[in-house]
């Protein structure tokens, strides 16, 4: 009996002894472990893994580890790791919260001094000015971009060929390229192919959010300083110019659905989206969206093209740019080591690899020709035309409000719910807009209370 007890005690001690060494790697290795939180995008993750392996090889004193979570869990994971006192050393606005949300909560480290110190190796001038703008909080740079997304028109060229319609222009300053002309083309491309009384092919799908169409019609939902990191106090829709712009934009979007019937209704769109990215299903001829419409492999049975955004109102061009800036946790134990990896991910070499594997555009201007080289292989446009489209997309752009407006996601969820009856054809734009303004302003008020306390 005593013998058994004795050996049991020894066994437990032995286990504890090993457990101690296994769980405290710092005792036998002087490596800094840097964690990076990523979303489980099937195209991005293999590239990230390859880059990490490469980096770890060349940096013997740093070990980078990726924590990969589903898109929906990205923010909960980030915030709960933070609450537990073990934030990931590197993160980004991969989901709904933007770098401004992080900055107002004092989560991200200001990179100004690092950038000034390493200006030669980083070459900040190589980045699109809008990309750096899209990582700046009240004058401080809070992240270094590793990729971008831009907004423009993407189309199925085969459907244009079948209908004998000329491809849309690539020059952003082409005065004849107007919203009305786009709607006319969309009408010709909307077809009931098998004659069963149901539309099988739609002309146009505009996926832009409310703040984007407000921009496009010459208005704005927010005051300019709101995009610089100052929390909104109310919507800027009390200004008649902004109000009428958004009202007009809502009317136009509703007309696409119920007057011209060139866009799929929410019910049809749900079915199309379950088949895949709307453009790739071949059910939609033109899509206004971020360039994710052409990420990954494109179906071989169609030809594809991209075009400039049309003028919704004369002399106004403004689209959304999406910047992905890598942020470093302010409370990280290894800020210097994390910075090394951030620099590496933002370098030309890494961005080029990401671009080659995923068709994501780089935030570095010097890589634009490589991007054009890559996408021109599956687009009908000439390289010069692609250059033209990209030039406009990066010139007439402003960073995504989701990244730059404090508490954006909550406000967006309010206006998404409030516009449901409009897209379902149950209510008129004016009625919807008026309640929307009231409800969003209430949510803004609640948000303000949270940070003034």
């Amino acid at each position, binding site marked *: 009996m005593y013998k058994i007890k004795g050996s049991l005690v020894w066994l437990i001690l032995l286990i504890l002894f090993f457990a101690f060494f296994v769980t405290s790697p710092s005792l036998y290795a002087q490596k800094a472990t840097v964690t990076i939180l990523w979303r489980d995008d099937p195209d991005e993750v293999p590239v990230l893994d390859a880059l990490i392996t490469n980096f770890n090889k060349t940096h013997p004193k740093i070990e980078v580890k990726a924590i990969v979570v589903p898109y929906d869990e990205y*923010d909960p994971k980030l915030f709960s790791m933070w609450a537990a006192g073990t934030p990931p050393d590197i993160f980004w606005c991969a989901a709904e919260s933007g770098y401004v949300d992080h900055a107002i909560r004092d989560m991200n480290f200001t990179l100004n001094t690092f950038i000034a110190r390493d200006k030669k190796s980083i070459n900040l001038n190589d980045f699109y000015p809008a990309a750096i703008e899209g990582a700046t909080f009240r004058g401080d740079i809070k992240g270094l971009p590793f990729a971008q997304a831009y907004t423009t028109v993407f189309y199925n060229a085969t459907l244009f060929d079948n209908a004998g319609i000329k491809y849309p222009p690539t020059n952003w300053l082409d005065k004849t390229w107007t919203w009305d002309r786009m709607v006319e083309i969309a009408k010709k491309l909307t077809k009931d192919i098998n004659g069963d009384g149901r539309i099988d092919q739609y002309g146009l799908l505009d996926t832009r959010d409310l703040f984007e169409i407000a921009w496009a019609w010459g208005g704005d939902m927010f005051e300019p300083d709101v995009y610089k990191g100052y929390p909104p106090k109310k919507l800027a829709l009390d200004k008649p110019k902004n109000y009428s712009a958004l009202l007009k934009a809502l009317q136009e979007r509703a007309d696409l659905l119920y007057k011209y019937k060139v866009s799929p209704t929410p019910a049809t769109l749900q*079915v199309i989206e379950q088949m895949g990215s709307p453009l790739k299903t071949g059910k939609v001829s033109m899509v206004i969206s971020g360039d994710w419409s052409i990420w990954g492999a494109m179906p071989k049975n169609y030809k594809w093209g991209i075009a400039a955004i049309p003028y919704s109102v004369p002399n106004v061009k403004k689209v959304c740019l999406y910047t992905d800036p890598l942020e470093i946790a302010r409370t990280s134990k290894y800020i210097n080591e994390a910075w090394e990896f951030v620099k590496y991910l933002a370098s030309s070499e890494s961005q080029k690899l990401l671009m080659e594997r995923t068709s994501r555009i780089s935030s570095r201007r010097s890589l634009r020709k490589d991007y054009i080289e890559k996408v021109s292989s599956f687009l009908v446009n000439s390289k010069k035309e692609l250059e033209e489209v990209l030039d406009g997309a990066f010139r007439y752009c402003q960073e995504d409000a989701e990244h730059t407006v404090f508490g954006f996601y909550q406000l967006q969820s309010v206006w998404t*719910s409030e516009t449901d009856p409009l897209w379902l054809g149950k209510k008129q734009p004016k009625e919807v807009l008026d309640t929307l303004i009231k409800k969003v302003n209430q949510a803004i008020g609640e948000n303000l209370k949270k940070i003034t306390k």
Partner: protein
Amino acid sequence: MKTNISSMSRREERYFYLFISPWIIGFVIFIIGPIIASLYFSFCNYDVVTSPVWIGLQNYKNLFFDPLFWQALKVTSYYSLLSVPLGIILSLIIAILLNQKIRGLVWFRTIYYVPSVISGVAVSLLWMWIFNPEFGILNFLLWKLFRIQGPAWLMSEEWVIPALIIMSFWGIGGDIVIYLAGLQGIPTELYEAAEIDGANSWKKFLNITIPMMSPILLFTLVMGIIGSFQVFTQAYVMTRGGPHYASLFYVLYIYQNAFQFFNMGYASALSWILFIIILLLTLLIFKSSPLWVYYESTKER
């Protein structure tokens, strides 16, 4: 001899605590801890990242002026009020049918139980197809069989909850199995005696089956109400609370506040209100149960 027994039982007690300790530790750390923490957070302004700031009853006061809180409560009660009784009636009817002596019964039982094995997300995606107003099979059948133009279901403010109630019947297999076990536990002599007294099927059902099944009905009623107040997956996957808040279930609203808007304090207050509501309802049912639940063993003693 005496001391021997007591030392043995003491040792046994020690072992009891030793073996149960993984559960106790887990329960205290992962269940009791968060419950107490959430009570504390419900009195705080807390966004998860910055430390909580005590604001007293402010969250609870805000709640009463929050139209979405009332909307969530309305949606959830509406769903609960219809789906629970209908679910119980339907599963009881099916259980009685499955309790008959007919051929191939085992197959039917399996078929009815199979749906409840499939995960909520998969079921939700499947029903999104069924309910699609333009391409879904439900509206197709309504048109082909009855020439009825079906509603927009999940895309209609009026029909989204009825749609989700219809969908909830997908999972009645679990209740059917419980009812079947209960039905088989009713002594046949009760029915035989009733038949001798000349009772018809309906009378037998009303005076024997229902009273004998009442403890089981109580159990499924309580579980059903708790479950219906915690509906989340369907709404999260299929409607995201829409259209226009028409399917904003209470737990979905808690989730949005906690993990999407980062109002963890407010979400905690919402959770405690939900806890109190469920507690009160359950107490109400238990208090009323002597009126309608029949326990064979306690009667007439």
